């Protein structure tokens, strides 16, 4: 069967974070918080988890005096997400036939 079910995307927050990063070059912490409607702690845990797997990379910077944390998807993260998508699509196709 084509594709690969990735445990990293089993959690809905991580799945959504990755979906957002597939279509946005760079997204900061607060934007994630608004889009996903989750608590700081919850979001931070999932982001750290994805970072550990090298699916996303973190870039810290300052906007004026405010610290800003930007996230972007890595090549391996994008590949893993694509494989996960392929898996889901195939699953749907197989269920139909």
């Amino acid at each position, binding site marked *: 069967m084509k594709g690969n079910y990735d445990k990293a995307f089993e959690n*809905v927050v991580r799945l959504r974070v990755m*979906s957002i990063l*597939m*279509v*946005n070059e760079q*997204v900061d912490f607060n934007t994630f918080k608004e*889009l996903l409607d989750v608590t700081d702690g919850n979001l931070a845990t999932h982001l750290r988890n994805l970072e550990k797997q090298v699916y996303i990379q973190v870039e810290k910077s300052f906007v004026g005096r405010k610290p800003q944390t930007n996230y972007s998807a890595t090549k391996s993260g994008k590949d893993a997400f694509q494989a996960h998508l392929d898996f889901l*699509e195939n699953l*749907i196709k197989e269920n139909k036939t």
Partner: protein
Amino acid sequence: MRKPEQELADIKSMMERSTRFLSLSGLSGVMAGIYALIGSGMAWYWIEGPETLGLASALDHRALMNRLLILALVVLLLALVTGYIFSQKKSQKTANKFWSSAGKRFMSALFIPVLAGGLFSFALLHESYFNLIPATTLIFYGLGLINASHFTISELKNLGLIQLMIGLIAGFFPEIGIYCWAAGFGMAHIIYGAMMYYKYDR
């Protein structure tokens, strides 16, 4: 595990919410169209209304142009303010952030061509090519909409194509420019806005 269909729908909606500006309200399109129709009606009355032949000749050319310019700016301002208010209301209702990065991208995609068109119209005004102004405003607006449609509901592209087409017609037949203006900014906005309202806003 959730059903894969659900999973994919979730992914798609996240991608859209993070990249597309979905707060644009259909009603603001309808209102903009109504303002434009009233505006072009007034302009028509000033230029070639039946008993205003007196007025048109009494006003010299410059004064008429100034009146039309002020009228156009008032219509534009009203449409923008209404669009802003309705869209903000909608974003509150749907809990989408109004001034998101998708919103900013939408605005710059729309307003760079529109601003260029507006300034170019001033150049035409300055050089006295009055009869090409309806075509110019419609064409640049259409291009702006097509450009901005990548960052909002994709149907906006159709409105852009219609404006572009009407604009080109106005370019070849400048004598019906004011009717094209009313059709594009007025009728097309009302029809499109009503369609979008019934499809997305209710």
